[in-house]
């Protein structure tokens, strides 16, 4: 992955020099291990700050919403699927984008590394190995063992839409059970599901990092913030907490690309992907649909056909 950076910088500088774009959105080196910071480059000199490694998991499509400039954007497979969704939903014009596609080998889950010790000082990578240094810790680990869960089942690591690719496409997993995690929960009984979800959400502090990290959540006023009418309470009541998570997930049905931004952002480690994953699987099973793969087909949940089945209307 780190070998991509020279090409990323070269393309970024070129499109800025040629005035193809006003800015390029990418990542710069973070101040803590495994965290890079989304940033913009408006000049060729700014581009020198760009980095690319296994810690660029934030979905940069989130930074396109409502922007008026001509923008270059560095985009992984999932980011490009969210760009497609943004274009379909009229959040950005294709013509104003220059998409620098990055074939993705998966992003490191910082929680897996942070679980190794209280103080991680430095994380570096070389090829398939990640070197972790911390308080009384100096270890080499296989990159594959540290990936975010969504990356381990990803079957669209290559950009689906781009103006230029920074490298050859990567090999796509064919030997994974994409829906093993969802099936596990589907197989639970009602009581077991209830206690599972209860436990899942009990630490939620309603900071809305999951919502705000998601490129799909761009409503001018989110339903949780509406006051006329006020749909739900704002305290820590468990019904309100669950309502937020369930409704947020439903708003993502048929749109979610499982980029993992929500779970990655959560300060208390909740994997709220559990909800969107189920909807993702349902859309796949019912409509053969995967979000953000094409500009040419309307998503199943924002269209209808005269012969749609209607047995559910009683």
């Amino acid at each position: 992955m780190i070998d991509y950076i020279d090409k990323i910088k070269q393309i970024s500088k070129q499109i800025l020099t040629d005035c193809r774009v006003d800015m390029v959105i990418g990542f710069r080196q973070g101040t803590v291990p495994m965290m890079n910071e989304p940033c913009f480059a408006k000049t060729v000199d700014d581009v020198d700050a760009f980095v690319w490694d296994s810690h660029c998991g934030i979905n940069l499509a989130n930074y396109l919403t409502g922007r008026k400039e001509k923008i270059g954007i560095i985009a992984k497979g999932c980011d490009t699927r969210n760009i497609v969704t943004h274009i379909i939903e009229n959040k950005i014009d294709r013509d104003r984008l220059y998409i620098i596609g990055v074939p993705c080998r998966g992003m490191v889950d910082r929680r897996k590394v942070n679980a190794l010790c209280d103080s991680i000082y430095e994380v570096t990578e070389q090829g398939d190995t990640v070197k972790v240094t911390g308080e009384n810790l100096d270890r080499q680990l296989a990159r594959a063992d540290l990936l975010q869960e969504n990356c381990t089942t990803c079957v669209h690591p290559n950009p689906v839409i781009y103006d230029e690719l920074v490298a050859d496409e990567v090999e796509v997993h064919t030997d994974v059970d994409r829906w093993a995690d969802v099936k596990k929960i589907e197989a639970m009984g009602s009581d077991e599901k209830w206690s599972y979800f209860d436990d899942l959400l009990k630490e939620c502090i309603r900071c809305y990092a999951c919502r705000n990290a998601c490129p799909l959540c761009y409503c001018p006023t989110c339903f949780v913030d509406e006051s006329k009418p006020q749909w739900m309470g704002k305290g820590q009541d468990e019904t309100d907490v669950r309502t937020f998570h369930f409704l947020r997930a439903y708003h993502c049905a048929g749109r979610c690309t499982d980029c993992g931004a929500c779970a990655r952002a959560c300060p208390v480690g909740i994997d709220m992907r559990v909800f969107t994953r189920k909807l993702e699987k349902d859309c796949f099973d019912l409509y053969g649909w995967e979000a953000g793969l094409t500009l040419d087909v309307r998503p199943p949940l924002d269209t209808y056909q005269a012969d749609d089945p209607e047995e559910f209307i009683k």
Partner: protein
Amino acid sequence: MKIIRIDKTDWDSGLKKSADHYRLVGPTQEKDFFLYKPLKPGKAPDMSFSNTRLSAKGTIYPQSHTLFTYSLDPDQKDHHLLIEPENENPPTAVIGIRPCDAAAFVQVRRNFDAPDYQDPYWLNAYENTVLVGLACDQPGPACFCTSTGGGPYDGTALDLLLADNDNHYLAQVVSDKGAAFIEKAGWAGEVETDAAMQIFQARKAAAEDKIRSTVDTDHLADAGTMALYDAPFWEDVAFACINCGTCTFLCPTCWCFDIQDETHGMSGQRLRIWDSCMFPLFTRHGTGHNPRGEKVQRVRQRFMHKLKYYVDKYEAGVQCVGCGRCVLQCPVNIDIRKVCELMNNAGKQPVTCTA
């Protein structure tokens, strides 16, 4: 200062005795992190933590607090009256609070206990709480408490300061509240102060050595407010921000709240809940106008409040205790240490006079 030796074999039994007089709150592990929770009877605090993911702020200032309840049903006694909850703040001991979180209460108190206004809820809870602090031997990778007027062994904001000294704790009795707690717990092994203080000093030096970052704040007060407000770096600082509430909710010194009435049928409650200057709704007027409608304005507000307005208003340093939580948990790596450096450097530049 009086120093008590508490053998670890006497720790649990002392806490158990104290539980007859205090509600005990202490560090508890939930999944992969620690937070402060009321300790169930017989449950000991888990003192093995580095620092808690959520600060101790909520022990005195809960995220969601019922100020009163009401009934709108004319058949009910006391209908249409506001009923305050009873016995809200029993004597409480927060066991294992870190010096940084205790220092945050001192900073927050300047807001909640001001000459003109006193917040009865916060003050009452604070006054009824004894802070049984645990000195910090393993500062985290983003800690910078020594830059914000505190330190891993700074007991000034605590009632008791415990140092974990192998098979026993050494407890500095900082206040009368702390002395009362020690007495209720039945720990009586007073030790010779000078020798014990040497141990504290040595441990303090070792802990401070482990703090890996420092932040300069010395020019913030001199900086021109409008020069900082109009500084060119805000667009760059704010770009990555997703305007979630992680930084403010995890921050022990952020105190802003919202008031919500929740009515269900004929009964309801008025809640005070944490709010965040990162949320657009925080400043939206009834007219729909929002003076901080843009993200860059909200991000600037957070840093200006902590590192400039607070500094100028109270003349007691920054509104930050250097606990590093916002640094480590920000989903997009916005780092207050870096922003503070930008602001402090701006303060170094002489104010240009065009006259």
